[in-house]
């Protein structure tokens, strides 16, 4: 070879293209060491699209409050399994008014005379840090009155960054929550899925007053919404304990000790500063371990909306809150609407059907209905979530399947249903939310950011107001005909709730 001759780069590229062409002839679906090899498609951008290659999505269920799915559009070929049949003939244990009726009636009352209406919004990381709920609360409080951020657990993963309230706390609290592997029966989880124990004072500690070393939690109002910047009144929720326990409450520079006299499973103590306060500090002098749950910042009139976020939750683990405890909260908190917003921790391409999920969540809804008999239940269908399929981001095939299960869940339990997926724009809306400028969602193609959350809150508020203006008739009892062939075994293979590292 003559090294003084110029090399031919064309040959290099031609050979490369040729080799890639050969690789593209490889049979699709080849695996090496269990990993499926992706096909080489050099000409993918210029060849005709194979219509069969485009992933077919199941038709997502329609929007609206527990609209019964027309039987003819979803009639499944497979025969219903017996568990399904049994489930659909069972009536809810506590019949409520159905759909959103109970809530809408309460809301009309609020509009008329300012009487309070309380909403619980349960969810996963989608609502962490008051995302969605912060904006929704603000819209509702603007429209119907009311102040305060609602229930705040003593300690939170979002304490530093929740836009609507700032929390600090001593590091000596003991916490149990929905993902604690083994829960002590004597300290049941509260409605938020947490229970906190302040450090019990040693016998040597001073008996009078609250020593400086007591466990404490401090809350400071702030953020973009005027209605939550000051604390008009607050309620402290705590469990039973020693009779001489007390809490030292500091607002506006005034320290007031209060005896923790309640001995029921859940006790509420009303705290009302003389003038609305910016900060509130609670220091606990407890002599035996005593469950403390959280503080609710609210007003005696208008809307209170509680954010109960728990990351990684599929919703199913809410059954870890003992029913007795939930019912005890029902005695002190008169909810008129309970929103259940889950799904991103459940939807996964490997799951072909979600009958097991609908069944597991039926238990959750049933308990909510019994614990809070005046509350309407609203199931929020999951948001769009993308997967990368053959190099392209598109709606994960599990999303419409899970939505169908969520709608079925609502139907069977006489709950309302709001299809967030459709409200976002339906198929592949997540891709456009990520790509929009400024972006509405994060690059995990699952979570929305604060702009996206603001948009969702607006959509949900509009939906609620539309129902408020023109309530659709209550849900029919017509059973859903969509069935899933998988049994409850599927639930055991996917149990994200108990994992210590969870999605």
């Amino acid at each position, binding site marked *: *070879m003559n*090294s*003084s001759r*110029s*090399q*031919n*780069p*064309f*040959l*290099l*590229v*031609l*050979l*490369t*293209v*040729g*080799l*890639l062409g050969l*690789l593209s002839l490889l049979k699709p679906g080849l695996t090496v060491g269990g990993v499926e*090899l*992706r096909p*080489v*498609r*050099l*000409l*993918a*951008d*210029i*060849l*005709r*699209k194979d219509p069969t290659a485009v992933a077919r999505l199941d038709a997502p269920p329609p929007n609206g409050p527990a609209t019964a799915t027309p039987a003819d559009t979803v009639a499944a070929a497979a025969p219903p399994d017996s568990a399904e049949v049994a489930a659909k003939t069972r009536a809810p244990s506590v019949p409520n008014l159905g759909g959103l009726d109970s809530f809408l009636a309460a809301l009309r009352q609020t509009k008329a005379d300012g009487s309070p209406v309380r909403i619980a919004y349960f969810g996963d*990381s989608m609502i*962490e*840090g008051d995302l969605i709920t912060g904006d929704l609360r603000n819209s509702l409080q603007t429209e119907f009155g009311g102040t305060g951020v609602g229930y705040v657990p003593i300690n939170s*993963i*979002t304490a*530093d*960054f929740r836009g609507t309230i700032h929390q600090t706390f001593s590091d000596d609290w003991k916490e149990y929550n929905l*993902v604690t592997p083994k829960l002590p029966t004597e300290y049941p989880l509260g409605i938020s899925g947490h229970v906190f124990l302040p450090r019990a004072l040693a016998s040597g500690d001073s008996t009078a007053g609250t020593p400086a070393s007591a466990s404490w939690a401090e809350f400071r109002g702030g953020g973009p919404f005027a209605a939550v910047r000051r604390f008009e009144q607050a309620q402290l929720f705590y469990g039973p304990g020693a009779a001489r326990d007390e809490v030292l409450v500091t607002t506006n520079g005034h320290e007031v000790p209060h005896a923790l006299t309640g001995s029921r499973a859940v006790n509420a103590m009303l705290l009302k500063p003389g003038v609305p306060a910016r900060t509130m500090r609670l220091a606990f002098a407890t002599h035996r371990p005593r469950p403390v749950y959280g503080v609710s910042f609210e007003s005696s009139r208008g809307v209170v909306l509680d954010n109960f976020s728990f*990351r*990684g939750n599929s919703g199913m683990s809410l059954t870890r809150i003992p029913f007795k405890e939930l019912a005890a909260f029902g005695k002190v908190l008169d909810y008129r609407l309970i929103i259940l917003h889950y799904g*991103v921790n459940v939807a*996964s391409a490997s799951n072909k059907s979600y009958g097991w999920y609908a069944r597991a969540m039926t238990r959750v809804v049933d308990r909510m209905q019994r614990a809070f008999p005046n509350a309407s239940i609203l199931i929020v269908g999951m948001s769009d979530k993308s*997967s*990368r*399929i*053959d*190099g392209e981001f598109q709606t994960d095939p599990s999303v419409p399947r899970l939505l169908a299960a969520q709608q079925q869940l609502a139907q069977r339990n006489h709950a309302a249903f709001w299809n967030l997926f459709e409200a976002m724009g339906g198929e592949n809306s997540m891709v456009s939310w990520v790509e929009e400028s400024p972006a509405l969602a*994060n*690059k*995990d*193609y*699952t*979570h929305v*950011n604060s702009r996206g959350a603001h948009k969702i809150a607006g959509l949900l508020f509009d939906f609620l107001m539309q129902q408020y203006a023109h309530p659709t008739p209550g849900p029919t009892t017509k059973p859903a005909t969509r069935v899933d062939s998988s049994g409850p075994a599927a639930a055991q293979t996917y149990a994200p709730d108990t994992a*210590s*590292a*969870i*999605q």
Partner: protein
Amino acid sequence: MDLLRSLLDNIDFDRLLGQFAYSPKSPMIFNTGFFLLLFLGFLGIYQLLRGHHRARLLYVTAFSLFFYYKSSGWYFLLLVFSTIVEYNFALWIADSSSQTKRKLLLTLSLIVNLGMLFYFKYTNFFLSGYQALTGQPVPVLHVLLPVGISFYTFQTLSYTLDVYRNQIKPLRNIWDFAFFVSFFPQLVAGPIVRASDFIPQIPKKPFLSREDMGRAVVLIAAGLFKKAIISDYISLNYVDRIFDMPTRYSGIENLLGVYGYAMQIYCDFSGYSDIAIGIALLLGYKLPPNFLSPYQSTSITEFWRRWHISLSSWLRDYLYIPLGGNRKGVVRQYINLFLTMLLGGLWHGASLTFVLWGALHGAALAVDKLFQKIFKPGDNWFIKLLGWFITFHFVCFCWIFFRAGTFDIATQVIHQITHNLRPDLLPQVVASFRAVFVLVALGYLLHAIPDGFTFQLEGAMGCRSVVTQAVVVTVVIWLVIQVKSAEIQPFIYFQF
């Protein structure tokens, strides 16, 4: 034959034509299948035109303009405009004997060049700054940033300035100049090629030696690996998520996000530069190296001799030295360093976070100079290791501002690292994002390879047959395809 016919039958000509049209969502980048095929066609004709100097230059220029049009649409006229204007300014400056006139012409050239850059890149930045200061509402202009404008304006600026300083003779043929300005390998993302490096190569017949060919293969293969495998994968599957919402992640995840981003930006930027240099080499043109294992630096001064060299040397020659450099006393030198880096920061993007990034580097360069002067640290391994550790972490710290986009996000990242570190989560985090951290680790490992080894590899590659070379490139492209179409990592939020 049948295969070919079925292939032809399957080609969707609308889609094929669509590939050639301007599409802001799919700009022309090297690591795409379309570019590979286009480049093959381009090279076929290029080889045929090897002996025809003028035709070859025109052909490459036309291709370059198309390349730019594909990413920026009608903005390619800006490139044409810039070419015509600077070509003439340089000639007028060179042909003028009056110093005043030369100065005037240079000033006009600077106004046109920087004015263009300023208008497209910084108008809204300064308008919103004005609004923030005065409280008066200012309309926001809807200007799209022309791709690569920061690179080619600096390139033409260096040409005019060199002509003004009599360091080079101006080109007397506008087609030669157009070839230099628009040369597609480095057009949109650098390196910023100096006229003095490139112009002498224009009249020569391109020659590709065995060594050059080996070097090109290594550069392209390594560049693709860095850009399309390491950088793209770790950004999509980890780093972007952290910087989207730092508060959702523990401090350890944020810290790994910062280390990951340091690797991502290096791989992204240097990888793309390497491909550009490799492609230029295949065409017979030598571009200067742009990155020399910057994270091996043991001082911040050294870092800037190894990081984005074409920019840092540009800033040195056309900003720092004209400001007075080190000729006007120590204090002025430090101020000059600081100012140079401040503007260098702004060059990266119209945002205060970039300004802070530049300011931090500027201040660090001044402190480093002062430190070296006072303490004259020795050269033993411990000092070097300590210097490396401090330099690397300082650079990473600055990257937080570079990547964050807003001060809020940057503060959150720092807060999580300082207040919610939770190092106990490390095993879980690494186990959950194994592929990401394997790639990050691989990136740092490759980075630690001494330059001498790379040269040996390039030499060895040059001795191989073209078939072997093609196999190497094919394997890397095949890996890229595997990674590109792989499913993304599911999101994971840890309890902390």
